[in-house]
């Protein structure tokens, strides 16, 4: 349904836009109907930038974003309006998504004015109640209240309800639960799971691996704007291959194992993979030469290079930065 192909984003920084910041490099991924895809990465990995480009809040520098076969990277005002009927986003801070001066109802009213001007009040109310029921909120508890009277979890679910009013097909959820308390967090996550069951595609942007793991079908691990590993959630979490993914998983605070125990397991895997680069091994095994894939773009290895190591489990070159040698040694260096 949604396909990103070699997507690039370069931010101009510096006083007069004198220097460039390559935030997203050659990212390719897809989201299908009824599927949650998690974009996981630390700060500065470009995960939010990708979410914003999909939502058309930022323009892309290169590559394409295709939604149902149509390129949506350059949409005009009117076309964008139609696009937003199908694709909506929910963001991190629910309190800043609402205007504190107005009651929460206004959020729905503005939506009605721009998208459903001909819908009668009674019918609208029915639709609204339906959307609220879908996110397990009681209309009487919610409508007519100000944002400060509701909890973060309720507000976040309200924003999802607002998106549902539009019969959307894709939801971009950018860190939507990081500001919520542990006890309400899980409700929002379960809601995403339920929406997925109804055929919605969800692009779930997060830095929290345990949350990403809970709802998602596939995960994409980003490092410095490039995809280093992607695949089925269980495949990536049970057998992380790229050194960055392994570091990341070893740093997550677990509830059932201490860091020391996790590190002991990880040391075993590191020993097994030491001095190897699965990307180069697979490329050589396929009899392909190291051409464009091995090139680097200003200091970071090109994001193009991913090989399918196991069915549905893709991994990139094990170098983290271009100046670093690939662990597989000089024989496979570009």
């Amino acid at each position: 349904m949604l396909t990103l192909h070699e997507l690039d984003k370069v931010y101009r920084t510096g006083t007069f836009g004198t220097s460039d910041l390559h935030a997203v490099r050659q990212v390719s991924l897809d989201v299908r109907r009824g599927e949650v895809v998690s974009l996981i990465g630390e700060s500065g990995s470009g995960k939010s930038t990708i979410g914003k480009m999909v939502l058309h809040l930022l323009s892309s520098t290169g590559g394409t974003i295709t939604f149902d076969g149509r390129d949506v990277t350059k949409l005009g005002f009117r076309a964008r309006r139609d696009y937003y009927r199908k694709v909506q986003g929910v963001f991190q801070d629910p309190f800043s998504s609402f205007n504190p001066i107005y009651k929460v109802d206004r959020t729905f009213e503005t939506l009605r004015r721009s998208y459903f001007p001909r819908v009668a009040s009674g019918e609208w109310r029915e639709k609204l109640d339906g959307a609220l029921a879908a996110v397990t909120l009681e209309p009487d508890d919610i409508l007519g209240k100000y944002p400060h009277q509701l909890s973060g979890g309720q507000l976040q679910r309200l924003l999802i309800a607002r998106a549902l009013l539009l019969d959307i097909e894709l939801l971009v959820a950018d860190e939507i639960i990081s500001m919520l308390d542990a006890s309400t967090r899980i409700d929002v996550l379960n809601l995403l799971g339920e929406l997925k069951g109804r055929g919605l595609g969800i692009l779930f942007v997060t830095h929290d691996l345990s949350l990403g793991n809970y709802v998602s079908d596939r995960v994409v691990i980003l490092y410095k704007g490039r995809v280093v590993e992607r695949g089925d959630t269980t495949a990536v979490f049970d057998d992380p291959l790229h050194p960055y993914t392994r570091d990341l998983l070893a740093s997550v605070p677990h509830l059932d194992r201490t860091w020391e125990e996790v590190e002991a397991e990880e040391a075993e895997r590191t020993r097994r993979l030491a001095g190897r680069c699965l990307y180069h091994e697979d490329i050589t095994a396929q009899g392909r030469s190291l051409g464009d894939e091995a090139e680097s773009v200003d200091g970071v290895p090109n994001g193009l290079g991913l090989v399918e190591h196991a069915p549905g489990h893709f991994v990139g070159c094990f170098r983290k930065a271009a100046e670093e040698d690939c662990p597989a040694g000089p024989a496979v260096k570009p």
Partner: protein
Amino acid sequence: MALAVNDLKVWYRTLRGDVKALDGVTFEVADGEIMGIAGESGCGKTTLGKALIRLDTRMKHVGGTVVLDDDELPLADDAAMRRYRYREVSLIPQYAMSAMNPTRKIGRMIRDLLAAHNVRYAEVLPELERRLKLVGLETDVLKRYPIELSGGMKQRVVLVLSTLLNPSLLIGDEVTSALDVSSQKAVARALVEFRDHGFVKSMIVITHDISVLFQVADTILVMYAGHLAEKAPAKTIINAPLHPYTKMLIGALPKVGDRYEEQQLEGIEGRPPSLLEPPAGCRFRDRCPLVHDKCAEAPPFREVAEGHHVACWAVS
């Protein structure tokens, strides 16, 4: 016993009445113990941390005592407390790393801070440099501006700086939050190391992230709406909690490996009560599945096994 808090009550004065943010808490922290405090937003965990060092103008010490190393802290007396601050009790407030003066180099900032406590910078400089190296920082961070450091580096500078005079108690409020997982691990590790080296005698680590506490804390104290719910060794809180609130809270946390399709976790229905006019009795009773008549009376925070305290009538 490094710290003994007895029936401490700290309320916030507002126009609509007193908000009973901390309403009679009693606990002890042993020498060398790292105690974690967990709870949802508004449960009083930050108020507890702040109360041990400085009451701001809105906060009112209503009752109870705090004894640190056999010395009662004069909580309500702002001037008298000055003798204890930084030297005996040190606090890393929330967002400390973002509160560094952007116009001062790190070294200059530390010098100013020490001068305010009548300590000469040159005297502690060797120790400062030693500790920076210990947490994995180069000594030339002292010549840098805060903007040049990453979040994890700044948080480690804050940790070194706040424990420079070897306080008896360090309170860290959300020190690992808002950091990437790898920096989070480095900061959490540094906390444990500082305790092991004896730079601080005991520690209170306040966070909403229970999985971090499981990694660093010896004991975990769970708070709910201004009251204590449960205190036990970290492993016990995670694996065998007794209070229904703790059980539900732990149950709502997905472990790495839990999947929505296989096992659906449940959140906790409802919201904590308003602390402006909190209901009498157990404050969790509106959300509790085990509620019965007895809960109209506040349950005592009593020891049910060695080192395991619970405030619930349903726990025998």
